[in-house]
């Protein structure tokens, strides 16, 4: 057996090739998620029936007139599913935005501030991470009343703790790099340094967790609505549709199955999309070591 010793030139190729593959995850996730987003956007402009229209007859099975059937009050289920998609997207976007902004700011403060502030914030974050989302949501609901905004706020705040901790760790690693020192000796001030060097290097590590939180947020909102802490009627959240269909599941199974399927499709879509995004957004050669 021969052992070839790599020469110096082989160890450090002149052009480092970034890992890049056409991601099947990205395509499948994009299609699934894209369909839900399209439905959500469509619901803003056109609905097959008025949400409060009860003329469809009770618990009808899917038909040409009512594509997904009707509920026990005679309302069109397809209309409700479309509105549910809109609420789900709103929940995901809103809570991810809150988690990203709050998390990144807190994480950056912890990473750049002195030992004391860092230690204090880190302990707070540990507690916040251990705190159950649903319990936090109940507290927010008790404070502000049950509404979609309360749900989004609660879910976003719960998610921000994880993002903050991740930001702190990654930002500390970035700040230890020599290019940060080089930036200082180039005369760059702290805020600009964070914008120019820290955020671009932290951001790629947040994309996947944030995308996963989007899926988590949709489930959390469904759970909250299921137990009656989400958006109040007549807003048709998928979670509330599930809860309402529960008592009639043997007579009209489609009323329970369809929102469930959409929930699952949304979450699988977002998670696959997250996985695919990582490969595109984060070529191996450009991450710090």
């Amino acid at each position, binding site marked *: 057996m021969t052992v070839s010793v790599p020469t110096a030139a082989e160890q450090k190729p002149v052009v480092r090739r970034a890992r890049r593959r056409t991601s099947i995850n990205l395509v499948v996730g994009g299609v699934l998620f894209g369909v839900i987003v399209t439905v959500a956007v469509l619901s803003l402009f056109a609905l097959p029936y008025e949400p409060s229209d009860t003329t469809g007859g009770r618990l009808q099975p899917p038909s040409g007139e009512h594509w997904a059937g009707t509920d026990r009050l005679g309302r069109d289920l397809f209309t409700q599913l479309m509105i549910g998609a809109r609420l789900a997207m709103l929940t995901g976007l809103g809570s991810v935005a809150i988690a990203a902004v709050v998390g990144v700011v807190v994480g950056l403060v912890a990473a750049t501030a002195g030992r004391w502030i860092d230690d204090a914030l880190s302990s707070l974050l540990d507690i916040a991470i251990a705190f159950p989302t649903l319990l936090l949501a109940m507290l927010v609901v008790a404070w502000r009343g049950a509404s979609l905004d309360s749900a989004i706020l609660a879910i976003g705040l719960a998610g921000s703790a994880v993002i903050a901790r991740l930001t702190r760790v990654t930002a500390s690693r970035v700040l230890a790099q020599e290019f940060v020192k080089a930036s200082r000796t180039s*005369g760059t001030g702290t805020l600009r340094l964070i914008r*120019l060097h820290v955020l671009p290097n932290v951001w790629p590590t947040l994309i996947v967790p944030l995308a996963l939180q989007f899926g988590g947020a949709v489930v959390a909102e469904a759970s909250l609505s299921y137990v009656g802490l989400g958006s109040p009627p007549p807003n048709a959240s998928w979670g509330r549709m599930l809860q309402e269909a529960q008592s009639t599941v043997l007579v009209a199974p489609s009323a329970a199955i369809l929102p469930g399927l959409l929930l699952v499709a949304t979450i699988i879509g977002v998670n696959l999309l997250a996985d695919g995004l990582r490969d595109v957004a984060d070529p191996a050669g450009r991450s710090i070591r």
Partner: protein
Amino acid sequence: MTAATPGEAQANAAPVVLAADRVSFSYGRGAEVLHDVSLALVPGESVGLVGESGAGKTSLLRLLLGLGAPTSGEIRFEGHALDRRDTRSMLAFRRAVQPVYQDPFSSLDPRMRVGDSVAEPLRSLGIAGGRTERAARVTELLESVGLPADAAERYPDAFSGGQRQRIAIARALAPEPRVILADEPVSALDTSVRMQVIELFQRLARERGIGLLLVSHDLTIVAALCRRIAVLEGGIIVEQGETRSVLTEPRHPYTRRLLDSVPRLP
């Protein structure tokens, strides 16, 4: 300090740009890592700073770059003690004193285009105003270190270690500094490209009249590049003088040991 006139002694030929004046330094309440160190840098002259790891070379460099304040003594820039809180004078200081770091793989932001990295001192120090003016300067700088103009559009991951160090040198040259402080600038590079980077330093120092402080543990490189040499041991400068005389007739036993430890080819 008076302006230098022709005919004065060599040491006074050019005004001192940057100097450490009886500088001591310790981290927190720990032991002193630098003790009573004095060192002067003059445009156009290369000084080698040698010593083993832990001798205090990097700490001294941090102070000379204004990234930390000495516990006693002062860093003098153009004859005045450096005040790190004085934003205006720090701006002038940063324009005049630029670093080249050891590891070109971590001294360039992997997510910033090379052109933007080279332009960063121009922007942050408020030198070249417009976008086109900056782009022209960047092209010129990249060419002066032997890189093609289209390098500006690429990311550091497209370059080898030697090329990255050239980019780092171009960035250091951007504000037209009078002194460059280089911390082991070739120790992370392959032997084959070391000499090319050393020659680049040599040429730049000669053509632009830049004063160079070269920190290294490699005496061969220092001998090739520097006219003067300072030997640091345990935070104290134990010997300082012309490179030739220090290397041929070392007076301090530590220097002799350092010389003996240089591996020679049989």
